[in-house]
């Protein structure tokens, strides 16, 4: 894993008595869990149960209605995490390569073109705009952010969506390598991804 440095065994993320609501609707209340270096946490729940909102709250995008989310051991809080959302965050007219360079600038990293081309199998489409990519290729490009700028905590929302078996295998490889490096992965999934989770969280009211 040339593009990523190992993370020391010091990161942890702690969710305490968390409550989230959208508008007047309460999604869930009093959710607590913690994850430490090397952990893989799977978040399960039915549609609309608040899986996405939980990840958004952990990413600092959504303000909780109660409780606390603490990220500990990160040297620089703004460099603590990646969030791969449902929406890929891609521009239709911009090429794969330009995306990598943009993210390298935006997050502070290196475009890692070779690594992305081989590992994520995007070599043949490197110069093409996103609008001609298949859904699986677009998803793999979104996952490339994880590699372009190393972050100890990964928050992944349905990371396997639109991926074929080969894509899922690559994703599992990325997750395994990240855990081996001391990173934390929290994934909201519909059905288990593959790697055996260190814990499973169920969100519901």
């Amino acid at each position, binding site marked *: 894993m040339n593009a990523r440095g190992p993370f020391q065994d010091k990161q942890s993320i702690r969710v305490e008595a968390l409550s989230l609501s959208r*508008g*007047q609707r309460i999604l869930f209340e009093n959710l607590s869990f913690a994850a430490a270096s090397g952990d893989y946490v799977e978040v399960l729940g039915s549609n609309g149960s608040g899986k996405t909102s939980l990840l958004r709250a952990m990413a600092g995008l959504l303000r909780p209605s109660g409780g606390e989310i603490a990220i500990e051991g990160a040297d620089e809080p703004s460099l603590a995490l990646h969030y791969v959302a449902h929406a890929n965050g891609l521009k239709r007219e911009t090429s794969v390569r330009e995306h990598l360079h943009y993210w390298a600038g935006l997050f502070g990293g290196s475009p890692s073109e070779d690594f992305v081309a081989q590992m994520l199998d995007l070599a043949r489409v490197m110069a093409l705009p996103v609008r001609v990519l298949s859904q699986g290729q677009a998803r793999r490009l979104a996952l490339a952010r994880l590699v372009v700028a190393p972050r100890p905590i990964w928050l992944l929302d349905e990371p396997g969506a639109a991926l074929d078996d080969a894509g899922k295998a690559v994703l599992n490889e990325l997750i395994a390598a990240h855990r081996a490096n001391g990173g934390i992965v929290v994934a909201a999934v519909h059905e288990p991804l593959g790697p055996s989770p260190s814990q499973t969280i169920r969100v519901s009211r």
Partner: protein
Amino acid sequence: MFAFLANPARFMAFSAWAAPILFAGALILFAVGVPWALFYSPPDYQMGDTVRIMYVHVPAAWWSMGAYAFMAGASFVGLVWRHVLADVAARAAAPVGAVFAAVCLITGSLWGAPTWGTWWEWDGRMTSMLVLFITYLGYIALWSSIEDEERAARLAAILCLVGAINLPIVKFSVDWWSTLHQPASIMRSGGAAINGEMLGPLLTLGGAYLLLFGALTLMNMRAAIFRRRVESAELRKAHA
């Protein structure tokens, strides 16, 4: 006072009394002020009886600006302390302020016809009031086009504060601009020297407008809170 009313339940109990009392107070002041202004105050030595439009026009101008200042204050509280009641207050005041601004513009135009000989004059005050009126419309439109109430409240609060910075700049700009374009001989709307006998009815009606503003804003707030309660009750039913 604010801390006490910050609790919605206490606010509802308070406003159940306060709104009708303010409304009654407004009616009393109107009952005193309107005849005073229309029949018992002296006509202007230049404008004659048309000066009586002032008693409708000037308080509307005062409190359309006052309402905006109130909204800006409430928006600030809502943004910084994320207080629901402040959001509701800002939203409730907006239509009242907008109507005052419209009244001010319409009466100003009616007043302009006999005194300036034109229905509209691009003078500093009227132009600024027009910008204020458009700002009100934008605020109300933004509120009603965003579904999520909490997000709508915060976004509208940002707009309200931006407007509060913009409006004095507009006033300054328009004043600068109208001195550039207008001969100084044109009379301004407030240019009539106000003598003591006019001040009495003017202040009475100013008070009446203020109480009316308070009463209508409280009623709007109560309606908004009731609507919220009904919605959340139905939501609970749907999820039970």
